């Protein structure tokens, strides 16, 4: 048996003993968990170290860890959906931002108060969130139905253009406010929609307090968290954020299980076969179009969900939250982890959010706390400094530019990955395409005694 199924050792894992090393004997999910925890540990240690150097308090470091975890989990949610599209099925969808926008905007429009400047339906989030997901899936259907037979690169352009069409429609002043079947609605054009529930606060308060309106009467588990928090001097606000982060992590786990089951099934087998060779799959009697549309819609619904609980969770949605660059974050994350594997995708999301996205600002803070660099505002001044043999001036400029320099880093990482590690940092990984663990199956007469094992969840 080759190492392919078991997961090749990541270069990081090589130096870690015991539980953290890969093994063929372990169930697959444990192996996946190991990789994800490993990546998280790397990011956490880096952040704690940088936070300490940067002079952050416990509250500060916890907030940074919470923030990076929330970002990782949010990205992971979308990465998993993209992996369903691209990794399993080979549908090269670069319109992710558009489907996220549909989810977030639909939820906002359904839940916004009818009396607000931009009126909505005023329904509860229980209806608003599913409505957002369904809307994203339906838009996915509209885009996918005609586009599924296209070549991968044409499909890419169509989805990117569709996402831009969606964003610009939400941005357009002609849809600022309108009436649909006599109901006043609106997208708020460039200013977006404001008067709908702040999902981040609503969710965490519903979990923590018996009476979410006035944060005074916590549930027992809420009380427990606050007591623990007090030990570490954590303020209630940080605890609320941590709870929301846990909520997103639970969503990631649910989606992970859902999509892993999807992959490890006859349905997933068709998806994988479509990715490999659609004509061959058709010739075996599979209605590939229907399967592709189902998979595409499911992925779009998850992208819509991510749009709601990530970009749309702060109580306002604007078109700028759904620029095409979001799509590329997701792609970079998936390519880091290796497309085709769910665990890889989550690892990629953690590494992207931790090391590439939130990491550089932490470095900037740490450096600024260590050395007192001058704030150099232009490259001109920086180069003049360099010419005067004063590198501090130049590095001051680099620090000022750190948040945009990381985008350069994204690009360079993407290029290097495509040239040297197109299968991702974990190497070639693949979801097995059956509802039972095929690795353990032997031809019946080789060993009559080999009982069918219990690996199939």
């Amino acid at each position: 048996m080759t190492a392919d199924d078991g997961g090749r050792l990541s270069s990081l894992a090589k130096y870690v003993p015991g539980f953290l090393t890969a093994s063929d004997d372990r169930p697959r999910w444990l192996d996946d968990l190991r990789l994800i925890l490993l990546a998280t540990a790397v990011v956490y240690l880096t952040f704690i170290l940088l936070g300490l150097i940067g002079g952050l308090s416990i509250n500060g470091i916890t907030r940074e860890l919470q923030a990076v975890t929330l970002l990782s989990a949010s990205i992971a949610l979308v990465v998993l959906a993209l992996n369903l599209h691209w990794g399993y099925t080979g549908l090269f969808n670069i319109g992710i931002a558009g489907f996220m926008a549909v989810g977030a905007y639909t939820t906002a429009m359904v839940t916004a108060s009818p009396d607000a400047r931009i009126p909505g339906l005023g329904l509860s989030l229980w209806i608003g969130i599913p409505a957002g997901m369904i809307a994203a899936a339906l838009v996915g259907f509209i885009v996918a139905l005609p586009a599924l037979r296209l070549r991968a690169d044409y499909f890419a352009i169509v989805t990117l253009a569709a996402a831009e069409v969606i964003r610009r429609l939400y941005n357009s002043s002609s849809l600022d406010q309108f009436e649909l079947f006599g109901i006043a609605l609106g997208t708020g054009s460039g200013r977006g929609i404001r008067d709908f529930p702040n999902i981040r606060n609503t969710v965490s308060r519903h979990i923590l307090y018996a009476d979410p309106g006035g944060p005074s009467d916590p549930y027992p588990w809420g009380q427990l968290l606050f007591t623990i928090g007090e030990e570490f001097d954590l303020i209630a606000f940080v605890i609320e954020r941590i709870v929301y982060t846990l909520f997103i992590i639970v969503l990631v786990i649910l989606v992970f299980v859902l999509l892993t089951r999807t992959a490890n099934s006859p349905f997933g087998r068709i998806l994988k076969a479509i990715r490999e060779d659609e004509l061959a799959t058709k010739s075996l009697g599979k209605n590939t179009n229907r399967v592709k549309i189902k998979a595409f819609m499911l992925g779009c619904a998850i992208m819509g969900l991510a749009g709601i609980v990530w970009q749309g969770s702060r109580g306002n949605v604007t078109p700028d939250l759904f620029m095409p660059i979001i799509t590329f974050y997701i792609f970079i994350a998936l390519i880091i982890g290796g497309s085709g594997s769910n665990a890889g995708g989550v690892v990629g999301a953690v590494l992207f959010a931790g090391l590439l996205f939130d990491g550089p600002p932490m470095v900037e803070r740490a450096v600024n706390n260590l050395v007192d660099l001058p704030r150099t505002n232009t490259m001109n001044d920086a180069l003049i400094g360099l010419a005067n043999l004063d590198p501090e001036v130049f590095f001051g400029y680099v620090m000022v530019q750190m948040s945009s320099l990381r985008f350069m880093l994204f690009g360079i990482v993407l290029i290097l990955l495509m040239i040297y590690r197109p299968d991702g940092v974990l190497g070639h990984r693949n979801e097995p395409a059956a509802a039972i663990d095929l690795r353990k199956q032997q031809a019946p007469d080789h060993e009559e005694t080999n009982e069918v094992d219990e690996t199939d969840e």
Partner: protein
Amino acid sequence: MKQMSDQLDLTVDGEGSTADGRNALLEIRNLRKRFGGIDAVDGIGFDIEPATITGLIGPNGAGKSTTFNLITGVYRPDGGTVRFAGEDVTGFRPNQLAKRGLVRTFQITRELNEMTVLENMLLAFKGQLGEQLYRSVLPVLRREVVEQEHELLASVWEILELFELDHLAHEEAGTLSGGQRKLLELSRALLTNPEMLLLDEPMAGVNPSLEQHLLERIHELHGEGYTFLLVEHDMNVIMEHCERVIVMHQGQILADGSPAEIQQNEAVIEAYLGGEV
């Protein structure tokens, strides 16, 4: 104007086809396909009776693979009709035909590279419960799916052993040799439980002992009532194993008859056998 003439041909249908063939399984009439300036298939017609083995031969570029592609819906014909089991299936998509029991293999194998041999084989079964997304993901329903997978796997092992592929079961299909891929494709096609198989050069690259094995298997299946249409370059295979041979040349049918008749046909010898020797 070109299309007009197609239409005219349609009205004088049936000239190139064989006997009435009321009980034919596959009926081809006046099938045509042009690529650029070439008439790859130029108005051919024939009937295939159930439970027969028919050979389709002809020099390279004669249009054999294109004929297969037209019958199985890979290409849309420019004209003509295809009937299978009494139903007009012209222009149907490959999956619709495979569902009806008309399954083909490809000259250049199309195994699913990054899937293991087992996964390749499991894919083939028709109407698997787990092909419904909801059954595959919902907790209780999934149990039946898992059960069925075990059942399917049993048949897979059976056929893998038959084709001597069992030792490769866990390998990714992309790592197999050319001959092994041919076997994989054929065995995969068999698992779809077809009524009729169109095999495009199934023996190319298969080692002689396996080839013998394969032919035996084909005969066995033939005995069970399967119908075969077979493109093959090895004349011995064709002459020994086919009841009937159709010869194509430059997109048209040059001859159609028993192996013995074909061997004596002047035109065939000139266009094909003569050219090769």
